[in-house]
């Protein structure tokens, strides 16, 4: 496979990549210290509450993602995928902000389930649009660029997240995290005009 600038110059995959660099990368702000957040925020909680919180996230995600993927495939055109992507990302930002209101284990489980549903909305549509707009000849480089950038951002975010939590507290950390998710949602807006309408017409590549 020859080196090509095409992964960088394809606006659709580039904006999707940037969106995930900001969105998925900033997941690492909270993920490594999530258990500490739970224990500090919810009185008398321990590892068991953290475990159930993660379980309710995975349960909601795994139950919802197949029906969502199936539905998106059935609806013609790409505009529905785009809406699922954008609103899924916004819902992830809203769910993250809801962490600030959590004070009981039940609140946490509900927020986690909500986040699981939001991810189930966002992930299949992201994969569908990304795959459709990647040129086969440079697919490896396009995905490779995305993984490398997301991983590097994740490593940086993990260090920053630990520092923010130690120095400024979890409220600041979560505010920054939710803000990053909003930016990530906004970063997919430029590709709307490049997604196919149900009648098959679209502008640009």
């Amino acid at each position, binding site marked *: 496979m020859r080196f090509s600038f095409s992964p960088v110059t394809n606006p659709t995959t580039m904006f999707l990549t940037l969106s995930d660099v900001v969105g998925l990368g900033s997941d690492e702000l909270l993920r490594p210290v999530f258990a500490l957040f739970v224990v500090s925020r919810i009185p008398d909680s321990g590892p068991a509450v953290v475990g159930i919180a993660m379980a309710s996230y995975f349960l909601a995600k795994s139950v919802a993602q197949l029906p969502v993927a199936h539905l998106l495939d059935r609806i013609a055109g790409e505009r529905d995928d785009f809406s699922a992507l954008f609103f899924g990302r916004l819902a992830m930002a809203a769910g993250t902000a809801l962490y600030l209101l959590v004070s009981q284990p039940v609140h946490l489980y509900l927020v986690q389930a909500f986040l699981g549903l939001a991810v189930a909305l966002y992930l299949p549509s992201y994969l569908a649009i990304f795959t459709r707009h990647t040129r086969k000849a440079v697919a490896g480089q396009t995905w490779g660029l995305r993984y490398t950038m997301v991983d590097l951002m994740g490593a940086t975010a993990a260090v920053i997240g*630990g*520092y923010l939590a130690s120095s400024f507290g979890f409220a600041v950390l979560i505010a920054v995290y939710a803000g990053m998710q909003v930016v990530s949602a906004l970063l997919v807006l430029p590709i709307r005009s490049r997604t196919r309408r149900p009648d098959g017409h679209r502008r640009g590549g």
Partner: protein
Amino acid sequence: MNAVVRFMILSDTVWTGALGLLGPIFSLFVVDFIEGGSPVVAGMAAAVYLISKSLFQMPFAHLVDRIAGERDDYWIMLCGSFAAALMPLFYLAVGTSGQLYAVQFAYGLVMAATFPSFIAIYVRHIDRDREAVTWGVYATVVDLSAALGASFGGIIAGSFGYRRLVVLLVVLSLAGVAALLPVRRHVIGRVRENGASAAEAVVLSPPGIGDSRR
């Protein structure tokens, strides 16, 4: 689904469940058992793992591709998985943040070797025209297993302590690795010309797949 795909999904399901026991509460473990453990140390530990894994992943993928056939993929996957399954035992021995970072670096290195070989074999053996369903089944059972692991991990850590949790995690991981043994009979000596290369498989596999090794 064919035998290779079924055993590989089974393996990752068991392993993901095992990793789910400790993963979500890892930062509590860091604060309780590491000298000077804090959110900063937990964040650094995650970063060291991510950097070492992303640094070594592509070189390993190219190595797997350079050696012809699938046998080398299989043995790298099996030995790497075996080593990776044992890695959490080091958590029982670490006391300082420096030691923790060293373990995380080695862990990332081992995972960097297993992920490309696992995903390359998996992608080559997926039945044609059943790709979407196969990925969907994988994502769903692995997520359910992670949910199960997370809920039990928290309870076990709270009631029996982290030492027993880590031992259980290692035993379960080894069971997951054992599920890879039947795959050996099905690996092919020569890979078709149009078969997926490990390097391509790594970058082409959708996010969420093989996350336990990523």
